[in-house]
């Protein structure tokens, strides 16, 4: 196929050609970035939590009446909850993943360090890690005799020194002591120090206010909660049993203490789904925008293609009369579109890169991976070819006899 005649025709239609190029370039730039944003959101929605998500249930219950013995109340609640058929674990904890409410503290690596190294979250609750179903990768979980009552520790500053041990996540260990095993290391929290006795594969923070990079900076302490300082009951049950267990647990909690308000009863799957709600909505919106953009661009190409075909009817007739086949005419318009698309795509790549730089600056996005460029190019080439097919076929159908009329 000869490209030169096409180029010389395009030179006579600079403005229209330029518009098509610009439209393709903008579409290419925006679609590349939008698809990248979608992939970022989808990736975020897959975020690793480190807990047995499909098996966990959270029930938030607040006691109304005066609590004379909050600790005994908590123990009785947990015993009743564990008796529910299907429940394989129960714990009363201070915080739960994906609930957007968290207890955090500054972490230092030495007793005299002035500025904290980082800020990590604190999980409290007897049997919390076992119930959550975290995976131990080194060391051990807490022994029963290592647990202290949170209330007592809070009341008596001296007891704080007795807490002594913690379990942390692999990611936190790697961040604090890169390349070393965290086991046996000591960290300093306020005036007390604690030794790492166990490392779990992961345990996500309940809220990601400090950014996704610190999502796994979590610590678990051997502290026992009671109903006056915690209200989140976490239950573990097989996925199919969860609905039944929720009903049973609410009944059990009400029975144990009729003066209770159940604030929330949800599976962790539901909680997680709510947590990523915004990401899902945004991804959906971006998909819609991408489709709409591609459709609008395709319609634009159809419109201009039709116009050109109508305008060049006589020229096509002449070519046909001089011996050009239908296929030649078809190819002519297809090649023309391919040329325009190629220039547009090249321009679009530069623009896509620029938009990405802007987004990196304002929305803390990573760099656009190079793979998006060839994919974007292929998509736009395809769309261009599909869009121009109709007008090109109409052009190919122009009979040679047109050449003889009304010149």
């Amino acid at each position, binding site marked *: 196929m000869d490209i030169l005649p096409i180029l010389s025709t395009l030179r006579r239609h600079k*403005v229209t050609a330029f518009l098509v190029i610009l439209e393709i370039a*903008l579409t290419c730039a*925006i679609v590349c970035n939008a698809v990248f*944003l979608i992939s970022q959101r989808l990736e975020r929605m897959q975020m690793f939590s480190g807990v047995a998500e499909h098996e966990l249930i959270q029930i938030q219950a607040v006691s109304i009446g005066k609590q004379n013995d909050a600790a005994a109340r908590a123990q009785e609640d947990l015993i009743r909850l564990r008796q529910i058929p299907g429940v394989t674990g129960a714990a009363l904890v201070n915080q739960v993943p994906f609930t957007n409410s968290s207890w955090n503290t500054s972490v230092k690596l030495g007793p005299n360090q002035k500025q904290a190294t980082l800020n990590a979250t604190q999980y409290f609750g007897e049997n919390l890690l076992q119930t959550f179903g975290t995976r131990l990768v080194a060391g051990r979980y807490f022994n029963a005799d290592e647990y202290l009552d949170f209330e007592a520790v809070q009341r008596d500053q001296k007891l704080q020194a007795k807490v002594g041990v913690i379990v942390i996540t692999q990611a936190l260990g790697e961040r604090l002591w890169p390349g070393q095993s965290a086991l046996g290391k000591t960290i300093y929290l*306020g005036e007390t120090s604690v030794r790492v006795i166990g490392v779990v594969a992961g345990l996500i923070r309940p809220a990601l206010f*400090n950014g996704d990079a610190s999502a796994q900076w979590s610590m678990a302490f051997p502290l026992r909660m009671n109903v006056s300082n915690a209200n989140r009951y976490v239950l573990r049950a097989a996925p199919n049993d969860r609905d039944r267990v929720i009903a049973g647990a609410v009944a059990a909690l009400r029975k144990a203490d009729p003066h209770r308000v159940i604030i929330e009863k949800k599976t962790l799957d539901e909680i997680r789904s*709510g947590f990523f709600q915004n990401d899902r909505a945004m991804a959906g919106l971006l998909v819609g*925008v991408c489709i709409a953009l591609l459709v609008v661009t395709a319609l*634009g190409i159809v419109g201009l293609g039709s116009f050109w075909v109508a305008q060049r009817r006589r020229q096509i007739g002449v070519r046909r009369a001089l011996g050009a086949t239908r296929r030649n005419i078809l190819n002519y318009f297809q090649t023309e579109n391919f040329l325009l698309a190629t220039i547009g795509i090249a321009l679009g790549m530069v623009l896509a890169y620029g938009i990405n730089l802007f987004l990196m600056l304002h929305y803390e996005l990573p760099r656009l991976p190079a793979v998006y460029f060839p994919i974007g190019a292929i998509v736009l080439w395809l769309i261009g070819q599909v869009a121009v097919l109709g007008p090109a076929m109409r052009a190919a159908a122009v009979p040679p006899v047109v050449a003889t009329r009304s010149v």
Partner: protein
Amino acid sequence: MFAYYLDLAFRSLKRNKVLTALMVIAIAVGIGASMTTLTVMRLLSGDPIPARSAHLFYAQIDPDPTPGDRKEPYDVIDYQSAVDLWSAHRADRQTLIIESPVRMRAPDVNLPATMPTMASITADFFSMFDVPFQYGNGWTAEDDTKRAQVAVISADLNQKLFGGANSVGRTLRLRDTDVRIIGVLKPWRPSPLFYMVAGAHYANGDTADLYSKTEDVFTPFFTGLELNDGNFSQYTCWHLPDHPGHLRNSPCVWVRLWVQLGDSSKVAAYKQFLDGYAAQQKVLGRVARPQNTRLRSLMQWLDYEGVVPSDVRLQTWLAFAFLAICLFNTIGLLLAKFLRRGGEIGVRRALGATRGAVFAQCLVEAGMVGLIGGLVGWLLALAGLWLVRQQSVPYADLAHLDASMFLLTFVLAIAASLLAGVLPALRASRLPLGLQLKTL
């Protein structure tokens, strides 16, 4: 002449329905998307209380005694500083604000107990923020100091508990204390819930929650503190508090202080007062960084906190890029349409129409496409806002197209189509006359 152009435009649009439809769709989709996001953006970035915002200020000091070189104070202040500053009464009006979840029942209404959020505030709150009352009133400064057991409730809660009737004089049980309802608010929906905004700049733009509804129960500050003791949560602490949830005299920050200052001299005087207080507390060893005092106006505070969700901002960018593409599309199609009519234009020119007349006629046609596109775009924007309302974002119920945005839809649509029409109209009006006539 204009009517004639309109007629011509109408005929021309009817002649090639496909091309017309393509242009209208392009404009409509672009306008629909832009107006949807623009409406949401305006809703979220607007002034929550236009009549008063210029005189409302958020006061901050840095009460953390631990050394360090932090540049900004915490977003909220500690109890002692808050009460000291409040009770000095140096501003025209001032209010302390804290919130806590509280167990609530209406003893004479047969509904189960719930856990709404209670705002505990001082008397000036209602007058400062222009809070509208349906029934009754707020409380007096005397009620604050007397720890009067009274409450003001939201219109929502009044509807839920009392079916919207005048509930002034009825009783609410908050935790274990009975309080008397003395006021019921009219529906009041500041957006964002500006007086509670704190800590948002840590949220990385994930700030949709700032646009939720107001609290359901308002109690006097000290009354609330007493009746819900142990249930308050801190913003942050530099030591663990001795009793969790009990934050009076704790090493924690958790209280907001808003002041109303009538003019700039009062603002300067209040800032001086804050500085003086911080310096004096430094002498007492309670403050390490006396220079960290701030007195931001309401809009400055919202800016500093970055309350507009970053997703919404991104969507607005996207919508306008989309509109740009739709415009390029329309330019191309208009060009195609006008140049195709070279013969007709040639005849008009030969009969004496000036270039300006041809240009005007083409623009009228472009504007007509814009008008129809705007109409369809308006429907699309309504559909888009309906979609926003279906989402479970806290500001969903606010997403409506008001009169000014309705007008803006058409202004934007016609402006966009005229802009798109300029180049094609220019080209059409410059077509060489002879050539066009010859081809007829």
